[in-house]
């Protein structure tokens, strides 16, 4: 596994898409925060309110889409470059190959979430002062990390689609956008339906004060994560090249 991850890391050298996705994920919150600092949007929101407002732009929309992009790209590229054949004839099981990819993707996703957390903390510190930030740091961090992780696990079905689509890329991108759309629309879903659909459960369960059935939401998120993972591995294992 070590070698596999090292190889995956080597593949990412001089990789423009990963670099642009990463920079986009960093520039976006920085821009928003910079505008806030210049306009002085302070009085309207409390610190948590400000974090939620920022999340609705970055974590609801941008991050899942970028993450979906990266995952699609990691998998689909092996098919378009025909490298999949060289990979599969290596003495590594197919499951490990796919898991290796997913680990790289998860690492990226988590790193980006942590970067985002750092940026938000920095912004909050400038806007609200360090004292306020200290007071609500735990709340901010747990919110952002929880949101990021839940997004990560509900995106595993994208891996499945990416395996099935081989050289195409639009099915998985479409799926990413649909999942993101559902996540956003879920805020207006009735309580039960919102908790049933995994992608809408993520914001419902993370943002405090939402109408949600916690047990149902957690279950649906778990099922979604495992289903996506299992199907991706299963399809990859039984795929004809």
């Amino acid at each position, binding site marked *: 596994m070590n070698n*596999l991850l090292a*190889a995956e890391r080597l*593949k990412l050298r001089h990789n423009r898409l990963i670099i642009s996705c990463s920079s986009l994920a960093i520039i976006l919150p920085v821009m928003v925060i910079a505008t806030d600092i210049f306009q002085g949007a302070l009085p309207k929101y409390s610190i948590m309110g400000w974090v939620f407002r920022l999340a609705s732009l970055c974590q609801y929309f941008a991050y899942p889409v970028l993450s979906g992009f990266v995952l699609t790209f990691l998998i689909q590229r092996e098919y378009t470059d025909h490298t999949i054949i060289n990979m599969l004839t*290596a*003495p590594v099981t197919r499951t490990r190959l796919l898991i290796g990819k997913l680990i790289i993707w998860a690492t990226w996703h988590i790193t980006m979430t942590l970067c985002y957390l750092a940026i938000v903390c920095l912004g909050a510190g400038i806007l609200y002062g360090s004292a306020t930030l200290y007071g609500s740091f735990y709340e901010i961090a747990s919110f952002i990390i929880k949101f990021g992780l839940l997004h990560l696990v509900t995106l595993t079905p994208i891996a499945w689609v990416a395996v099935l689509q081989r050289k195409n890329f639009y099915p998985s991108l479409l799926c990413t956008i649909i999942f993101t759309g559902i996540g956003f629309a879920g805020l207006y879903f009735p309580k039960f339906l919102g908790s049933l659909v995994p992608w809408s459960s993520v914001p419902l369960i993370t943002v405090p004060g939402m109408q949600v059935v916690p047990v149902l939401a957690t279950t649906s998120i778990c099922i979604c994560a495992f289903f996506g993972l299992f199907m991706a591995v299963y399809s990859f294992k039984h795929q*004809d090249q």
Partner: protein
Amino acid sequence: MNDCVIETQMLTKRYGSTTVVNNVSIHVKRGRIYGLLGRNGAGKTTTMKMILGLSAISSGEVRLFGESLKKNERKLYPRIGSIIETPGFYPHLTGTENLQIFARIRGTIKQNAVQEALKTVGLPYDDKKPFSSYSLGMKQRLGIANAILNDPELLILDEPTNGLDPIGIAEVRAFIRSLSEEYGKTILISSHILTEIALLADDIGILHHGNLLEENTMADLEKKNQKYIHIQVTSQSLAAQVLERVLHTNNYTAEADNSMRIYDTGIDLVELNKALVSVGAGVSTIQICSDNLEDYFKKITGGVGIE
């Protein structure tokens, strides 16, 4: 030690109701070059993919090095080097970086394996040129370098000369020959070009519409391809004298079991027969052997032939 490095038993591949490969049983013997000949779409690539476990087998079995491929992949893959379809590499990375990636995943046999593999195929080590700006010939070479990275016992090469210019083809061909002759590798190679296989292979299997029409040694087939008059006589010496004195030719050889080959095919058979009989050389066989390989393939593929 099992003599067959690759052995497939009634290998079949079906996609829905269409059968792409039908009951193919090939036998690739240790240390030999096996040429899989067939037109585009005859099922060569699919067969190779099944042998490599890239494609699921509908029915039949693949045995590599005397072991079933299924469940033994991890043990068997290190012993095989392959190029299937176009050589696949990461376009934004250099050849060296690409090989380093695969060396990392597959393990290596020596410290500077990547460097040596590149040297063997004549590509620069640690240069700045990304794979995407490689010429087709260089791409194919890198594919070969990747295949021989771990000095494998078995090489499976799918149309390795496809798309190369004549010089490149000759180079690759010579290289494959040397791999077999000097390094004793077993090689399975596919091609849709008859001459390609004829020049390289020791054994040949002909695939046509997914069926293995013939499996034979090249030497056997070549016998059918030479142009000469074959005679069998009771007295070689008398026949030799007749050839020289009456038919004025020195272009013949005396073979074992009283047969002779006359390479001067301009000789009239009737005249030859008459002359031989007149001295009592006792002719029992007289025939022109001029079966051309190409004609032969036409015959067995039912008239369509191979490009």
